[in-house]
């Protein structure tokens, strides 16, 4: 390449990278003072050179409707998307209580869970639990309204690494949880605060 075109190429490369939007050839031309302004043809040559130079690299120079822009190659999307992944949100207390009551009291209707917890069970929680395939409707109770009977799934057992429900602790064992529990609980609270500050999709009590 002609040495005189080198600065033109570098300026155009830098401009395309620094620009907030794609650049048209005209927009590239006006970066140069009139007396040093390259021909449109030179700019086109430079662009195709820059394009060639992207071969075998992580980025490419593309022409889109509003001009030229550099973009990361699609091949690398699986790695790059990690930069935009959010921290997993946390489930609310209401969610966990509903789930654990379904586990221990299955097959169970919403009405029974409401009676035990003393508050209405949110449809959103039931929906989220079903979407995660942790609970399923096992049948309907033969009373007016035919309420669904909820139970846990194999997926639920797998997630918590249980072979069967009977591996869950008994009520008596749960009450003994206290001693070990305090520390964990404290830690969980801390984490919750932290998550509350950082996470944008906080799942609230309403879930």
């Amino acid at each position, binding site marked *: 390449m002609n040495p005189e075109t080198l600065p033109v190429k570098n300026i155009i490369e830098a401009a395309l*990278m*620094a620009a907030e939007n794609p650049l048209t050839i005209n927009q590239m031309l006006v970066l140069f003072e009139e007396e040093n302004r390259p021909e449109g043809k030179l700019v086109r040559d430079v662009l195709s050179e820059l394009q060639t130079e992207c071969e075998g690299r992580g*980025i490419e120079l593309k022409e889109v409707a509003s001009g030229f*822009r*550099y*973009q*990361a190659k*699609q091949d*690398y*999307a699986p790695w*790059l*998307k990690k930069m*935009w*992944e*959010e921290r*997993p949100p*946390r*489930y609310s*207390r209401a969610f*966990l*209580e509903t*789930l*654990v*009551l379904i*586990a*221990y*009291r*299955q*097959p169970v209707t919403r009405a*029974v869970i409401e*009676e*035990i*917890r*003393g508050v209405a069970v949110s449809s959103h929680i039931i929906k989220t639990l079903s979407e995660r395939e942790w609970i399923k409707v*096992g*049948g*309907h*109770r*033969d*009373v007016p309204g035919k309420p669904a*009977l909820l*139970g*846990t799934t194999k997926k639920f057992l797998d997630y*918590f690494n*249980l072979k*069967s*429900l*009977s591996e*869950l*602790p*008994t*009520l008596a064992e*749960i*009450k003994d*949880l206290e001693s070990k*529990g305090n520390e*964990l609980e404290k830690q*969980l609270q801390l984490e919750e605060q932290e998550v509350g500050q950082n996470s944008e*999709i906080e*799942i609230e009590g309403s879930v």
Partner: protein
Amino acid sequence: MEQEPNKMDNSVIPEAIVNASAESTALPASMIAKVLGAPIMELPQDLYIPPDALEVFLDTFEGPLDLLLYLIKRQNIDILDIPLAKITHQYIEYIELMVTLRLELAAEYLVMAATLAEIKSRLLLPRADSLDEEDDPRAELIRRLQEYERYKQAAHDLSELPRLERDIYIAHSEPPNLKVDRPLPKVELQELLLAFKDVLKRIDLRAHHFIEREPLSIRERMTEILDRLRSKEFLKFEQLFTVKEGRAGVVVAFIAILELLKGSLIELVQTEPLAPIHIRTAS
């Protein structure tokens, strides 16, 4: 901001200042200002700044230390050799002018005037033959001037560094099309059990029977049976038992069926005596 004040036009001045002061004060026309109670009839000769520029000029100083530094630098003097009487003299002239022109004057400027006057008077006191550093009344002032000057210089150096928005432009390219996964929340079993413990604590004892009635193995079997009935309308009674499970398993299955019957969740169907028993979901 970085203009050099002493490059200002010096041809104009005296009359302008007199006019300005006449407008803004009740002083006799011939008197410019009162310095420390004494009337000033003439303008100090080493001041040559037009009054309308004075305000701008003063704005360029970051405070009394900055003004003092300017007065010293203007004479090409090392800070260590500060000619205190002269500098004090000039400094107070500026202050007076500011007061005369009714420019808003930060209290710090007046405090510095007092400090300078005090140092000067101490220098004039009769003293022992030799003077070492601790005795030099100027020492503290010189230290402050030097300290300020080094940061003033550092601020200047910082503003010369290449920086974003002015010299440095971030190079970036468009990310590819991304389908960003929304990670699902994680739950620890321990967390789940603690939630349960909370529920147990909260509900009254009477309500415990809701939960405590049957062991989990039976509850699990109940769900399993209901599950099987969902895909088939009828199940033969004996299909609910597996020999492989042994006696305990059979008992679990049997109790589960009884519980389901009791809760009207399933029905037993027998078309005629001694015919096979079927179960189906209650309808």
